[in-house]
């Protein structure tokens, strides 16, 4: 016979107003197995919890039902109280008589009846409950950061400075990301490289950061605390342990006219190259699609020039495995392909990007402004190297445009366009900047003041309206648009046009997300677990996100989010073992027929195909087995198992049927 205590909460007036709590106590006390029933004004308060603890001790209770608010609210509170009193917490259940009863009903008698029934169900369940122990999962106390832009750098440094090892994986030959190529940053106009490169060096020299550049994540196995990552180190053809970074190879390379990826095609590089002088690691890489030795087997100049003997034309991709406990995805963004159709997203043929040399995108303009850029920071247009006297900036190219398929605001373009007009004016004093915009969105500390400065002090002309077409005539770009505030068409004869293209997630993010079971939104940005309360978590335990991979954002926001992700990683890594709720699937391995339907159905890949062997090591049988680290307790395996060998702890079929039977 059970000894169950029922504790009915008034929740002040919230429950007691509609439910007759005295009658409830009177009725449920009569239920078989109920040892005592009491009610109290606030069961969650200290006196309320004390009441539960004292009753457990004095009445030697072996089960507790608290009839109160939703278990989402206070189940943990009450279970903790039960545990303090020496009762296994999983022998306590909550009957929700507030959200599912008093709040949604007005008739006092009916609500009281319903409350009694809800409690009867809970009592029936508790009778069938058994003690459960929390699951302990060992933790590999190191993290992986994917992406070496400013977000990834910040996350990696924070985690490493907190004392944990970090494996950083970057696809490009150097870390630094997009920020390394920017000129100056809004709203303070501090030089991007000056603030970023020291942090890049910190990453490169940090004793706890292991850096894999020119590498990609090939596969991810395991689960929170226990990921095993396979990393593909792409053939670099340069042994970076031997190389000293002297740069003689690039100087000697005869193939110098390749478009530089770092300069977004605005400058050139040799076939063996370092993306930029401040690269970390400061080691070159050979472009295998261009190098004469690798494509035609003739040349070898760089190998001859290399005093360190670091060139290896026979280099191949290598696969490396790393064990980590948590993962941060900071894969960043790319720009929208302005001139061409890309899947469902249409191009902007009318702007002639890719057709007119002097129509460029905003990242290309950053390189023209940058002191380390192809023009050493002088604004010279690509077609003839002349200094442009009239520059048109067009915002929202691809953003906020239903017709082109990207409905969202890219958030940073208003700010960097204002910055572009300023920097341009600071370099070309007799130049005139023209901006076509839809709205100016400059929310942020000192942001709106910055835009006003661009307009009022640096004299940028702002037109609220769209540009309909750009044509070329006698070396001028004819920009035709509208000024909707003045109600007039505007034509500007420009020397250079800069398009603020929409931000999109970097290439390959969807595939990477699939490897980690992380979701993407309709535009391919990584999905957070909850937009407000879990903004850097994902639905996969142990995987966190930050930076522009999640949504368009600027540097301060990326950095803040990266630190947030890093602190979440530190929580995950803070103990040698992770404690998880034990309410997960259990498979009866003795009777499992090993059909593995559950293996196919499990959305979390938490079912393993296991073998049972006897002491001699002979195979006794095969069975499905639940990986306690991965199982989320969703119950899909329970419903699909044809032989009823799967069950969810804490929600067993026996418990559920007992609840139903108590009602009928």
């Amino acid at each position, binding site marked *: 016979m059970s000894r169950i205590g029922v504790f009915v909460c008034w929740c002040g007036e919230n429950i007691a107003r509609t439910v007759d709590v005295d009658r409830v106590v009177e009725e449920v006390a009569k239920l078989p197995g109920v040892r005592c029933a009491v009610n109290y004004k606030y069961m969650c308060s200290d006196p309320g919890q004390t009441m539960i603890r004292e009753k457990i001790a004095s009445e030697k209770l072996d089960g507790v039902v608290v009839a109160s608010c939703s278990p989402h609210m206070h189940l943990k509170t009450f279970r903790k109280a039960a545990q303090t009193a020496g009762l296994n917490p999983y022998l306590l259940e909550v009957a929700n008589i507030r959200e599912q009863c008093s709040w949604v009903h007005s008739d006092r008698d009916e609500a009281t009846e319903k409350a009694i029934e809800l409690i009867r169900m809970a009592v029936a369940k508790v009778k069938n409950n058994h003690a459960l122990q929390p699951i302990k999962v060992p933790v590999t106390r190191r993290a992986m950061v994917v992406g070496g832009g400013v977000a990834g750098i910040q996350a990696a440094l924070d985690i490493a400075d907190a004392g944990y090892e970090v494996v950083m994986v970057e696809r490009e030959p150097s870390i630094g990301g997009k920020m390394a190529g920017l000129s100056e940053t809004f709203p303070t106009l501090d030089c991007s490289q000056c603030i970023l490169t020291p942090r890049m060096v910190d990453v490169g020299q940090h004793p706890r950061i292991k850096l894999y550049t020119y590498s990609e994540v090939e596969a991810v196995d395991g689960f929170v605390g226990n990921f095993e990552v396979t990393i593909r180190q792409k053939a670099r053809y340069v042994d970076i342990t031997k190389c000293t970074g002297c740069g003689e190879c690039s100087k000697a390379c005869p193939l110098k006219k390749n478009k530089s990826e770092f300069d977004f095609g605005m400058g050139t590089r040799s076939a063996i190259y370092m993306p930029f002088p401040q690269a970390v690691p400061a080691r070159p890489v050979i472009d295998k699609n261009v190098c004469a030795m690798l494509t035609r087997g003739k040349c070898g100049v760089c190998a001859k020039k290399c005093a360190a003997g670091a060139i290896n034309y026979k280099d191949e991709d290598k696969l490396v495995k790393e064990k980590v406990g948590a993962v941060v995805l900071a894969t960043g963004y790319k720009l929208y392909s302005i001139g061409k159709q890309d899947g469902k997203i249409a191009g*902007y043929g009318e702007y002639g990007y890719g057709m007119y040399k002097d129509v460029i995108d905003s990242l290309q303009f950053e390189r023209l402004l940058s002191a380390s850029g192809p023009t050493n920071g002088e604004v010279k247009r690509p077609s003839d190297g002349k200094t442009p006297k009239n520059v048109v900036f067009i915002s929202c190219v691809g953003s906020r445009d239903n017709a082109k398929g990207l409905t969202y605001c890219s958030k940073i373009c208003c700010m960097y366009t204002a910055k572009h007009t300023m920097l341009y004016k600071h370099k070309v004093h007799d130049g005139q900047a023209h901006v076509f915009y839809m709205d100016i969105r400059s929310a942020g500390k000192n942001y709106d003041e910055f835009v006003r400065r661009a307009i009022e002090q640096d004299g940028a002309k702002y037109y609220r309206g769209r540009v309909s077409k750009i*044509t070329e*005539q006698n070396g001028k770009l004819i920009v035709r648009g509208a000024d909707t505030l003045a109600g007039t068409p505007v034509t500007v004869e420009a020397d250079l046009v800069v398009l603020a293209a929409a931000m999109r997630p970097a290439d390959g993010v969807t595939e990477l997300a699939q490897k980690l079971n992380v979701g993407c939104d309709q535009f391919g940005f990584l999905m957070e677990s909850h937009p407000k309360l879990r903004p850097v978590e994902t639905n996969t335990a142990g995987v966190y996100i930050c930076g522009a991979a999640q949504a368009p954002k600027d540097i301060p926001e990326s950095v803040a989010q990266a630190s947030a992700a890093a602190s979440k990683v530190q929580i995950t890594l803070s103990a040698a073992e992770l404690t998880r709720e034990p309410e997960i699937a259990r498979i009866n391995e003795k009777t499992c027929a090993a059909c593995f339907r559950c293996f196919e159905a499990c959305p979390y890949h938490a079912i393993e195909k296991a073998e049972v062997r006897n002491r001699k090591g002979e195979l006794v049988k095969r069975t499905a087995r639940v990986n306690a680290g991965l199982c989320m307790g969703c119950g899909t395996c329970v419903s699909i198992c044809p032989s009823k060998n799967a069950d969810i702890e804490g929600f067993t079929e026996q418990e559920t049927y007992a609840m139903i039977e108590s009602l009928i």
Partner: protein
Amino acid sequence: MNLGYYPGCALHGSSDDYQQSLKACFGALDVSLKELDDWICCGATAAHTLNHKLSIALPARNLALAAQQGCEELVAPCSMCSLQLKKAQKAISGDALLAAEMSRIVEAKPDGARVLNLIEALERVGLETIKTAVKAPLKDLKVACYYGCLLTRPPKVAEFDDCEQPESMERIVAALGATPVAWNYKTECCGAGMTMADEDTVLELSQKILADAAAHGAQSVVVACPMCHVNLDMKQSAIEARYGTKFGMTIYYLCDLVGLALGLAPKTLGINRHFAGRIA
């Protein structure tokens, strides 16, 4: 190959030269054009500015006729006609109530035929087929491909090529051996029907088109629309008089160029009936 043919008012009237060229060209390509029996006006600009339902009912009747006459692909060489037909088709296919109403009005079911503009019709014949049929490559011809405002717009109705930077005509012209020039005014408006109401506007717009084509090295302009041809060809002398420039620009229909490359005589194609430029 058999294709249905919807001439529309223009090709039976002012642009008879277009019909002559079209028939000669498709004949040489071994394509038989079967004219829709009992066709009516597509409604053009007039209908949709006055009565929305009428602007759908008129093309709907033609589509119903096409269905009745077993026509699966219907060539409408006038860009206004092809657009109106496509527009009606789109409106009906997305709206069951409207479809029922139209069936009642035109007393038949207006479904079926795939509507092709001239470029689509030639693409249907096949770029490779055309290429192999070329007998006299147009080697020395530098030509500006002019789409006008209607062939690609509105993009959701026309569903044809890049709305702002189309390339399909260039591909055909290149297959004939000619050199298409890169220029700015491919999809600008020539003034179209305004030629009747406000000639000044038409002269201004068409002048810009001709001037830009000339500035980019074109010796001639190729069109796929009867109205564009009227404004650039017939009005060319008026433009020249008003702006004091001499263009002397031959304006070809796209089928003219295909026909010439296939070895047809200019006279067969009706090119001698054009007004401007050197008569080839």
